[in-house]
Each structure stands twice: as C-alpha cells, then as structure tokens.
C-alpha cells in the first residue's frame, strides 16, 4: 500500500471541508477523483501536501507505511509526493532552471546522493522538455512568470517528470486547457506511468479521462467519497451530471 487515508477530517477557519475521507492507493494505479466544485478536491491535495492553513481534526494518512502528519512539507516532497497545482504560483527572479535544479538536488541529498552533474542535468532537462513539448526558452524564464495558462500546466508536468515522484497528485491540471495542451499533458502522464508509481488525478470533467485511463474513479461530494467505481463511472457522471449525485446524497 502506497497511500492509505482513513476517516480524514480537515477544516479551514473552523469550517469543516473534509468529512471522513477514506482512500487507498497502490503502486501502479491511477485514481481519478471527480466531483462538483467546492466539495473538497483541492483541499484533499493540500492536506496530503501538508499545507498548514488546513487543520486536520480527525483521521490518519499513511504513506509508505509512515505517518504522513509527522513529516514537514519538504520531506513529504522528498519522499516522492508531488502536487501538480491548479494555480501554479509565479516566483519572479528565480529562473526555472535554477529552481528545478535546486529541487532535484534537494531530493538527491535526501536520498544520500551527490548533486546532479551539469551534463546529466541538461540531458534530463532536454528529454523532459521534449516530453511535454515545452518551448526551450521557458526554462530560462522565471518560475511561471508571464506563462500562459497552458504553459503553466505543462510546466507542472515538466517538473513532475524531473522529480520522478512516487505519488503524483494532479489538481485540476486539465482546467483551462485547450485540446492540444490537454493531449500533451495526458501524454506526459501516460509516459511517466510505471509499476512503481501512482497517480491521483483530480478533475471536474470527464474529458481528461479520455486520454488518461484510470483504474478507479471516486466521486467526492460534500467532503466524503460517496461513490467508487471503474472508469465507466466517469462516463455515467458525464451523462447524468453531478445533479444525479446531489439528489442521491443530499
């Protein structure tokens, strides 16, 4: 078991967002989490990442057999948890190259490895830029600064490819993408899928799942996972809309 979430409750400013999440993710699996807006999808990603604005009031998360709550944010990342953000933040003045090299070396240091050699790093950069069809000058620019919406999302996938996570959580990576960008992002994910890693794909729409075929689909509603099924569940949702869920569970 890679990730095990049991009865997770979390709130922000005293308002409960997650109300008893249960989820198990094994290596080699792709999970999709779907649901209407404002049901706690992004909160779940943030709590797994360790963002401290959310208060965990109940439950537990075990990752690689460890109590995740005992690890600081950066150690969770170093243990292989990657979040592809819905709204990647801009960091002016810090070049993408410098940023990602620092991150790669932090991960290596955690594993007891020496910093990556310049040659190896450049090679890795080139390969992964090709993977997400990223413009070469993008990596010389400041982190996300002035990037278009599509470029930001591609950049998240690029970073994921560079950091080779064990558990990648993509938070609405598809939102705001045109069909070409969507294909590129999905293609990147598919190429990075292995037996060792796992993906949790948070999405509002079914269309990303045309490209990334999930093993499991979960429906998140009002802070709980109310339905779990195979990929067919996504089609059903698309067809019937979220009102179907709302009616059933409200």
């Amino acid at each position, binding site marked *: 078991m890679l990730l095990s979430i049991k009865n997770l409750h979390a709130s922000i400013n005293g308002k409960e967002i997650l109300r008893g999440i249960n989820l198990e993710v094994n290596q080699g699996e792709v999970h999709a989490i779907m649901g209407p807006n404002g049901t706690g999808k992004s909160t779940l990603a943030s709590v797994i990442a360790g963002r401290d604005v959310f208060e965990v009031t109940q439950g537990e998360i075990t990752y690689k057999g460890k109590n995740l709550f005992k690890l600081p944010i950066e150690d969770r990342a170093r243990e292989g948890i990657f979040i592809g953000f819905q709204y990647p933040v801009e960091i002016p003045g810090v070049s993408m190259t*410098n940023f990602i090299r*620092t991150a790669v070396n932090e991960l290596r240091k955690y594993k007891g490895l020496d910093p990556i050699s310049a040659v190896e790093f450049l090679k890795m950069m080139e390969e992964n830029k090709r993977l997400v069809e990223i413009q070469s000058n993008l990596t010389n620019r400041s982190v996300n600064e002035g990037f278009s919406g599509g470029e930001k999302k591609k950049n998240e996938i690029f970073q994921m490819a560079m950091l080779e996570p064990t558990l990648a959580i993509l938070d609405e990576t598809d939102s705001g993408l045109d069909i070409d960008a969507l294909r590129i992002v999905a293609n990147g994910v598919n190429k990075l899928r292995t037996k060792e890693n796992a993906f949790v794909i948070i999405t509002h729409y079914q269309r990303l799942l045309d490209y990334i075929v999930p093993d499991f689909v979960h429906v998140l509603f009002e802070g709980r996972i109310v339905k779990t099924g195979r990929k067919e569940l996504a089609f059903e949702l698309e067809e019937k809309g979220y009102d179907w869920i709302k009616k059933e569970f409200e």
Partner: protein
Amino acid sequence: MESDSNKIIDSFTRGDYKFGFITDIETDMAPKGLNEDIIRFISAKKNEPDFLLEFRLKAYRHWLTMKMPTWANLKIPPIDFQNIIYFAAPKKKKQLAGLNEVDPELLNTFNKLGISLEEQKKLSGVAVDAVMDSISVKTTFSDTLSKLGIIFCSFSEAVQKHPDLVRQYMGSVVPYTDNFFATLNSAVFTDGSFCFIPKGIRCPVELSTYFRINAANTGQFERTLIVAEEDAYVSYMEGCTAPQRDENQLHAAIVEIVALKNAQVKYSTVQNWYPGNKKGEGGIFNFVTKRGICKGSNSKISWTQVETGSAITWKYPSCILMGDNSVGEFYSVAVTNNMQQADTGTKMQHLGKNTKSTIISKGISAGHGNNSYRGLVRIAKNAVNSRNYSQCDSLLLGDKCGAHTFPYMQVENKSSIVEHEATTSKISDDQLFYCQQRGIDMENAIGLIVNGFSKEVLKQLPMEFAVEAQKLLSISLEGSVG
C-alpha cells in the same frame, strides 16, 4: 554557483552573527574623547606632514560648528563623541617583509574570517590590503603592481611616500566641509587605502581591501582615495566583518574616487558588519560618504554594494558626472533584518553633456527592519542630452518591516530624459509553499527568492565577491520567516 551557495548556507547554523570573536592584540590607544590635542596626537603618531595636520584641524574646527543631520529616515540614538577612542593601532614591532613576520594572532583572525592572505595570494590572484583596526598590516602584490606604476597601499604609507598625490586629490571630491560625518572623518581618520592607476594602465587584478573593526570602543575612520588617470582602469573591492560586542560602534568612512579622461573605476562593496542582536542592541553605526567624480570626458564610475550588516546604515555612493559623455552607475542590495535600519541610495549629478546614469536599488526588509532608498538625480542646465534610468525595488518578508523610497529629481534642461520605476513585493506563503512542495525547505526557498530578486545587482560583482554575497544574503535572512 547557486548549488555551491546552497551548500555553504547549509554549513552555517542559524541565529547568531558568525564573525563574533575578538582578537587579543595589545593596542596602542589614544585616550577617549576628541579635542585638538587628540588630533595632534593622531597626526604625530602617524608622522604626518604639516599640510595634513592643518587639514585635520581645519576640519575639526568646522565640525564644531556642525550638527548631526536628522533628515534620514533613521532612529539614531544619541552618540557621545567624547566617549569614543579615536586612535588604536596594533603594536608594530618592526617593518614586515613577509607573512611569516605577521603576528600569528592576527593571521589567525584572518583565517577565522576565511581571508588567509596566503591563500588569497596563491589562489585568487587578488591583491589584499588588510586593514586591522587602523594600521595596515600587510599589502600583497605590491611588487607586481609597482612594476606597472600602480600604487596600492595604506593611506598612511601614501602620505609618507606620495604626499604630493595625497595633497592634490585628498578632499577634492569630498571636501572637509562636506557633511557632519565626512568632516569628522577628515579630522580624525586613522588609515585606509590609497590606489593610483597611472595613465593608460589597466590594473590586471581586482584590488581588494578587508576592513575589520577590532578593539572595543574604537571608532573606525577609514579614508580611501582612488585615482585613475587618463585611459586607466581598476576594479576595487571592499568587504568587511566585525566582532560581536555590546556597545554601539561608530563608523564614519570616506571614499573618494577621481576618474580622468576615458578612465573607468569599478568599486564593489560587501558590507557585513555586526548588525546588533535581535533586540537591536549593539551593532555598528555606519555613516559613510562615498563619492566619485568623472572628471574627464568618457570616464565611468560604477558603484556596486551589498549591504547586509550594521545596525544603522547611512550611505549614498554618488557620482559627479563632470566630463562630457561620462557614465555613473549605482547597483545596490540592502538587507535589513531584526532591528536594522538602512537609509541608502545615491546621488547622480549630471554636469557634462550626454552624461548617463543608471540606478538599480534592491531593498530587502525582514523582521522589524526598516529600509529606505534615497536618491537624487540632478541634471544641470548644461548637461544636455543626458539620461538617467532608476529602478527601485523593495521586497518584504513578514508584516513588521518597512520599505520606503525617496526619489528626488531635478532636471534643468529639456533635452534630457529621466526615468524612474519602483516596485514593492512580498514573499508570499504561496511561493514558499510551492518551493517546499518541490522539496526545497523554507530557508533555501527564501535564499532562492532573495537571490533571484537581487540578481541584477549581484551579477555586477566580481566573481569571487558574487559567491560571498549570495551566501551573505541568505545567512542574514536566516530565521526571518516562520
């Protein structure tokens, strides 16, 4: 280079000032206080010619008529000028010919600071004129330099060996009447550096001086004079650290630069004096007058400073652009953390035709730090077709610090163009979280963001200084967030 700097940052533990140690060297001190006798004592100790004693006394008498300036955006506690020792020199046994003759205690101090003269000499190709308290201890490379006719020595030595040059240029850029602190310095300065690059010579090495304040309660009054004759070039670096102590220390230095026709002078500073503890106790008061004159046409003076230390910084490296087509530049990063205060900037005085100036100022405030940029751009009536570009950016860490910008512009003709841009930004929780989610911890994330913010200035520094400056920026902001 960035990864190197990260490694070095890691090797520093957080918290206290790293260079807090006091060397135990018997000093030859003047009694506390200031009067004409003390000035005569200093002058006699240094075996100075009459013109210099006269200069000092004139300055002292003028100083008595002056009041401490209050216009800066600084809270300066009252300074008792009679409670300061104006002269302290390490006891010198004899003239030194080599490193083996230098006091081992002193060498040890340099080693702790990471400026082993020997290593500097062998590895970096940097000529070092190390100033310990008030007397220069060792000058390297002077033989090589002297073959080119370059003079690089302590100010005292220049007074003895080149009195005519000193007499000609000293006070020609910063007159003894200039301002309260410069006038005080003119009365009581003890030592400093002197640099003369003759006509047509390009100085082949970066000239470097490490200043160090050492004896408790000793004011430090350095005086530096750099003269570049026609078609000459020099890059000069100044850097400093100081031992930890409880009482505030006054520092009032003067740097004068003269650039003749087609000459270029690049002056770089990394200032890392003891900033005081987190409550604001102790720390250096740093009141510095730095000014250069582009006297000849097509000359250029470039100031680059990284200011991370001192409790109070009051400093405006300036350029008088007298020669036609002359160029002045000012690149600055100033960090204020904890209770530090800085009021720093520049003055660009455009007098000649087609003169150009560039000002890039980056202020970083953290803790309760207060950081002000103050700059004057004046374009005189005859300075036709002149240009200035100013950019002042402020970065805030936390919500208890302050950033201020006071730009002054006086444009007296219609053919000149002056541009000013200013921004203020804050390191956001979102940015830090993003970095942390990529495995970069908070201290490193701040280092990354701050170095990114300061990039335009840091790239102006000579290579060997740039690495040190990156370290310093990160170290001086340790523990400022979270």
